[in-house]
């Protein structure tokens, strides 16, 4: 009985793909059409509000996952993909409409692409759906969201955009070794915090 209980407690928790946390993550895509509309019409304040809502949903999905106990490896990857899609779209949009300098945006998109490729290589090395936890990159996600807000709000735009580039480059160099060379930690078991 004890052995059976231990065996069942160490089995990975199965979480449905359709859960409240993933729904909140998916809802972030709904802010993109209004964001485009606001930028295309030159409505700076509305554009800022829509990107703010997108950023708030980003913070909310983790909270919802904890409240409803639906944290999963897929959810983490979906969240990372949504970050890249929403903020990538926002950056391209503000650069295309001349609200942000093009060169740093091109550098950001390129470095973001390299980061995605490295994460895929990491998942392939691990042989499972997993997302490398980068404490530094987590901090730049908020900065990236804010960048779009700085562009839509006309707030020290060139300063913030150019300051981002060396930071992102430093993080890429640091994370490259961790993702491509260093040993991969074992998969977490049920009840343990996902890293």
């Amino acid at each position: 009985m004890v052995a059976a209980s231990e065996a069942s407690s160490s089995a990975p928790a199965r979480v449905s793909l359709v859960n409240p946390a993933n729904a909140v993550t998916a809802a972030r895509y709904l802010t993109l059409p209004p964001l485009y509309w606001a930028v295309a019409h030159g409505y700076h304040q509305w554009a800022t509000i829509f990107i703010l809502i997108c950023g708030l949903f980003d913070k909310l999905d983790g909270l919802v996952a904890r409240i409803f106990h639906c944290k999963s490896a897929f959810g983490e990857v979906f969240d990372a993909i949504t970050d890249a899609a929403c903020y990538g779209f926002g950056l391209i949009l503000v650069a295309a409409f001349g609200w942000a300098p093009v060169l740093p945006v091109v550098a950001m998109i390129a470095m973001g692409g390299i980061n995605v490729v490295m994460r895929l290589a990491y998942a392939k090395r691990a042989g499972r759906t997993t997302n490398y936890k980068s404490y530094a990159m987590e901090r730049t996600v908020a900065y990236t969201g804010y960048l779009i807000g700085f562009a839509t709000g006309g707030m020290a735009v060139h300063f913030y955009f150019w300051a981002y580039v060396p930071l992102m480059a430093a993080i890429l160099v640091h994370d490259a070794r961790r993702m491509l060379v260093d040993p991969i930690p074992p998969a977490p078991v049920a009840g343990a915090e996902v890293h």
Partner: protein
Amino acid sequence: MSPTPMSDATFKWMLTVLTGGLAGPWAIIDSIQLWRSRTADRRDPIVRDKQFGYVIGIAIGVIGVIGCLKFQNVI
């Protein structure tokens, strides 16, 4: 729909508060975290990752505050 839901001055201060109100405390909190982690075993890659993250967090916080000051024409 009105193209400007608030006045320009309100909007400018909202951006400043949203940015500075996050960036300032963020730099302070990550400074404290970095200070607390100084005795941790740096041979552990997770510890090194965290410390690197704190340094990046401090840098982002400082950049955020400087940007606010530039936006308000303080510097």
